[in-house]
């Protein structure tokens, strides 16, 4: 039988700054970010970042490409993880697509102008 007070572990010990070695303080890691980037002329590029793990990015990309009739690719970024890139401004289409397929609306963040 163990008595808590006799344990060697001190629950009241100072742990130091809890945020000290946490790189993403105040980050929005759990959001799905939909961004837009300008290319030359009036061309644009839409990126989707932060897709939850339970979704297969490859399959999603295929669905996007078919649904939006655009090309796209899957980029694996070291820091950001898998990112779906689509040609053209597909931001609103992506967000409606995701919402229709029961992704929580509050986790989707649409950026850009």
């Amino acid at each position, binding site marked *: 039988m163990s008595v808590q007070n006799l344990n060697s572990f001190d629950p009241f010990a100072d742990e130091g700054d809890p945020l000290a070695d946490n790189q993403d303080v*105040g980050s929005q890691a759990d959001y799905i970010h939909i961004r837009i*980037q300008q290319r030359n*002329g009036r061309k644009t590029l839409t990126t989707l970042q932060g897709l939850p793990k339970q979704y297969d990015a490859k399959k999603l990309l295929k669905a996007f490409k078919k649904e939006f009739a655009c090309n796209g690719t899957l980029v694996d970024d070291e820091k950001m993880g898998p990112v779906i890139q689509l040609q053209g401004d597909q931001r609103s289409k992506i967000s409606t697509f995701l919402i229709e397929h029961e992704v929580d609306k509050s986790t989707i963040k649409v950026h*850009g102008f």
Partner: protein
Amino acid sequence: MSEPMFDPSLKKRKKKQVQFTVDPLGADADPTAPAPETIEPTTTDGTAVDLGPTTAHELMKQNGDTEAAPKTEEADDIKAMFGDLKKKKKKKEIPMDFGDDSGTSTPIPAGTSTPDGGEAVEDLDFSDLKKKKKSKKKANFDMEAFEKELTSGGAAADADDDVEPTPAVDLDDDADLGDDPFAQPSAGEVLASVSSGNEAWLGSDRDYTYPELLGRFYESLHLANPSLLSTSGGKRYTIAPPSIHREGTKKSVFTNVADICKKMHRQPEHVIAFLFSELGTNGSVDGAGQLVIKGRFQQKQIENVLRRYIVEYVTCKTCKSPDTLLTKENRIFFMACESCGSRRSVNAIKSGFVAQVGKRSKNKTG
């Protein structure tokens, strides 16, 4: 390259409408028309952001001219009973009316048959959307208040008490931090029905409700100090629209960043960092304090981004006052409100994934 400006919204207007329905500058606005003088307190995604406080004062003020509105709403409710199609239509409509027609109105004489209809709807679908329920409640409530006024303590008052679901202001949980335009007006409609001297509860045995007392309070406050009313109603948070010019074909110059930052009481660096991360570009500040942004941007587009900045980093989430201070402590930004004293942490500005655009040979790392 023949078109004057980069503007995806010109061609793809239809698609944008979904997103920017409530934005006064958005899809509905003619892009060639001059932009309005001030930044309106709505965000691009449709939530109303009250930059100036909307108090019960204001509601009282507005009450006079919106008499007919609840009638249509009732009619809608009854219609909604009959088909899913109409229901769907209504769902879409609801977020668009910003309390300027239905919410702030005074109770009106409803047809004798309508109370049954309103009740029936309420009984039928409890599983419906929250927004819809709210409006039903409101319609129901209008009629009650009206009946109370008519009879002023007759036998009907007792019957009313049974129908009354929750007379208090329905502050519901889905309204994130008071962005719900419906929450406030429901307090307002009672205000109008109660005028000093003939309060509805005087004639009957029932207890007075909170909204009624609140209305009474504002009534007497309004009578005693008319000056209080005018100050709260007249003050709005306005910012000069950003002036964007083109420099060459690939850059835009944002000339009055410094002014806007000063008006918002924010560091220009913070604002600029936000702009760059949102727009997915970069740029620089030139000698005259102007911001040179890579890419083609229009005033409308920058304005949208600034509006989002104001929502996220300037207005207090608790009291909606723009009078806030942003300080950095241990790598976290905190926003402290000067008027209500609330303090909360805000998201750090972090630019996400930026795709490779342009020639690869120019990019040394890639």
